[in-house]
C-alpha cells in the first residue's frame, strides 16, 4: 500500500486526536485536560474535511473548539481553577471498568476492522453547504424546528440555574 497524501493526513490527524484523548485521561491539571481536548476537536474537524464535509468541519471548529471549550474553561475558572483531578478511585473498580470497556471495544473491533465496502462515487463534496441546507429545510424540517425549542429550553434553563440570587444573603439550610 503506497502512502497517498490523504492517508498521511489521516494518520497524522488521528494520531493527534488519540493523543489528545489520552492526555485527557492522564494529565493532572484540569485546565490542561481541556486544552488537550481542543487538539482532538480540531483534528476531528480535519478528518471531516477528508470526508468531504466542509460545512461540518467549520461547525466543529466553531462549536467544539470554540464555544464548548470556552464555556468549559469558564466553568473551571468560576469554580476551583487550580484544581487537580486527584485519582483515588478504587483500583478494583478501575480495573473492572477497564476490563468492561476493553471488552466492549474488542467486541466492536471484531465487527468493524475488516468492514470493506466498495467505495461509491458521491457528490457530497460539490456544494456541500447547499446540499445540507436543502436537506435541512425540506426532509428534516420537523427536527430542525424542534431543535429551536430545545435550544430555547436550554437557554432559559441555563440562565435560571446559573443566575445568582442576590436578594438576601443565602440562608443556609440543613
Amino acid at each position, binding site marked *: 500500500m503506497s502512502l497517498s497524501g490523504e492517508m498521511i493526513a489521516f494518520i497524522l490527524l488521528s494520531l493527534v486526536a488519540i493523543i489528545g484523548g489520552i492526555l485527557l485521561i492522564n494529565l493532572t491539571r484540569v485546565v490542561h485536560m481541556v486544552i488537550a481536548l481542543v487538539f482532538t476537536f480540531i483534528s476531528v474537524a480535519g478528518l471531516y474535511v477528508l470526508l468531504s464535509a466542509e460545512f461540518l468541519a467549520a461547525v466543529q471548529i466553531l462549536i467544539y473548539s470554540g464555544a464548548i471549550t470556552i464555556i468549559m474553561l469558564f466553568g473551571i475558572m468560576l469554580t476551583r481553577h487550580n484544581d487537580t483531578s486527584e485519582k483515588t478511585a478504587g483500583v478494583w473498580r478501575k480495573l473492572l471498568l477497564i476490563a468492561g470497556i476493553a471488552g466492549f471495544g474488542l*467486541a*466492536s473491533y*471484531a*465487527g*468493524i476492522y*475488516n*468492514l470493506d465496502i466498495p467505495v461509491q462515487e458521491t457528490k457530497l463534496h460539490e456544494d456541500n453547504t447547499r446540499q445540507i441546507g436543502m436537506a435541512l429545510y*425540506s*426532509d*428534516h*424540517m*420537523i*427536527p430542525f424546528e*424542534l*431543535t429551536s*425549542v*430545545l435550544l*430555547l*429550553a*436550554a437557554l*432559559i*434553563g441555563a440562565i*435560571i*440555574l446559573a443566575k445568582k*440570587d442576590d436578594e438576601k444573603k*443565602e440562608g443556609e*439550610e440543613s
Partner: protein
Amino acid sequence: MNLDTLLSYEWGHMAPEFIILAVAALLSLLDLFLPKSYNRRSLAWIALVGILVAVVSLIGLLDSKSVSILHDTFRLDSFGKAFKLILLIGAACVILLAESYEPKEGLKEYRGEFYYLFLTGLLGAMVMTSSGDLITLFVGLELLSISSYILAGMRKKNPGSNEAAMKYVINGGISTAITLFGMSYLYGLSGTTNLKEMSGAMSAQAANGQFLYLYGLAFFMVLIGLSFKLASAPFHMWAPDVYQGSPTPVTAFLSVVSKTAGFVILLRIILTLFLTMPGDDTQKLSFLETHSIYISCLAGISIIAGNVIALRQRNIKRMFAYSSIAHAGYILVAISALGYFTFDAVWFYLLAYLLMNLGAFAVIQLITDSSHSEDIADFAGLYRRSPLLAAGFAVFILSLAGIPGTAGFIGKLNIFMNALMTDPGHFVLASIMIAGTVISYFYYFGIMTQMFFRPAASTEKIKVPAGIGAVVVLALAGTILFGVAPNTALDFLHNNFGSFNDFLK
C-alpha cells in the same frame, strides 16, 4: 421542494403538538413581560387548559387514518395516538401537582419557568411517540431529557436538588452518547434514517454475517442507552438519587411521563427494526426472538433489585424510586414476551401505573410539604388526621402492590397472561414477577401500617389544595374503574386503535 408540496401535507394532524408548543411559547412570553409582583401560579391553569385542548384535538383525530408528513419524520398512527393520550393525561395531572407545589424555601421568580419547562418536555415526549425517523426521535428524546435536567435542579437553594440534577445530567449524557453510538451504526449500515426503509435494508443485508453482527451490537447499545432512561436495573443507579432530590412534581413527571416516553421509543426502534430482521443465518427466527433473552434479563434484574432494595428505604420518595424500577421491570416482561397482546398489555399497564403513581405522588407531595421531611414516619396516623386522604393513598398502594379490584392488578394480570401465552411460555419471568410482587407487599404494607395503626405525631388536620385534590379524585376514580371494569379501557383501545396494525406500515 417548493411551498406547494410543503403545504400539501396534512399539518392538521400535528395539532396537539402545535397547541403544546404555542402554549409553551405563550407562557414564556407572559412570564417575561408580566410584572414581578404578579403571582405566576395562574400560569399553571393556562398550561392545564392548553393540555386539555390538546387532548380534545387528539380525540378529534382518533378516527383518522394514519398520516405521514415529510417522509415519516412525523407520523400519526394508532400507536402514536394511544400513547400520546397517556402522556397528555399524565402531564395534565403533573401540572396540577406543580400548581400546588410549595417547597419550604419557595420557588420565587422561577415559578413561571417551572410550568413551561414541563410543556417543552411533554412536547419532546409527544414527538417521540409519533415519529418514524431516527433524527426526530433523537431530538425529541433530548428535548425531554434537557427539560428534565433543568426541572430536577429547579430548587436552587436545596443542595439535594442541585446534586440530583448534576447526577441526572451526567448519567443522561453518558446514556445519550451510548444510544447515539448505536444509532450511528444503524444509520451507517442501512444508509437511511427512516425507520421503515432501514428495516427493509436490514432484512436484505442480514444474510451477511458481519452486518448481522454489527446490527446486533447496535441493538445492544441502543438497548443499554435507553434502559438508562427507563431506569431499569442494572442501569438504575441514578434513579433513586434523582427521584429523591428533585421537586416532587418533577419526580412524578420523571416516573410517569418520562418513563412512558422511554418505553415508547424503545418499542418504536426495537419493534420496527428488529422484529422483521432474521436473527441468524438459518433465517428461521427473527432477531428479536433470538435475542429477547437479554430483555428478559433486564426485566428480571429490575424486578428483583427494585423490590428488594425498596425494602430498606426510609425515605418515601426513594422507596417509590425503587418501586418504579420494579414497575419498569414488569413492563419489560411484556416487551420480552412479545406476543399478540403486548401492545395492549403495555398500554394498559402504563395507564394504570400513571393513575396509581400520580395519585400516590399527590399525597406524598402534600405530606412531605407540610412536614418538611420525607421520612416514612411522617405518614404515621394519617388516618386520624385525614381519613379520606388515607383511604385514597391506601387504594393507590393496594393498586401498586397489585391487589384484585384495582387497575394495578388487571395490568399485572395482562402482562402475566401475556408472558404465559407466548410460545414458548416465559415461566421463569412469570415466577420472578410473582416473587417480586410478594416482596413488594412488605414495603407497601409497611406504609399502610404507619398510616392506620401508628399514633400521629401531630393531630393537625391537613388542608388539601384544589390541584392535589383534583389529582387524587381523578386517579382514585380511574384506579377503581379500570380495576373493576377493565373492559372500559380495553374496549376503548380496541375500538379506536384496532390492534395497532398500522404500526409497521
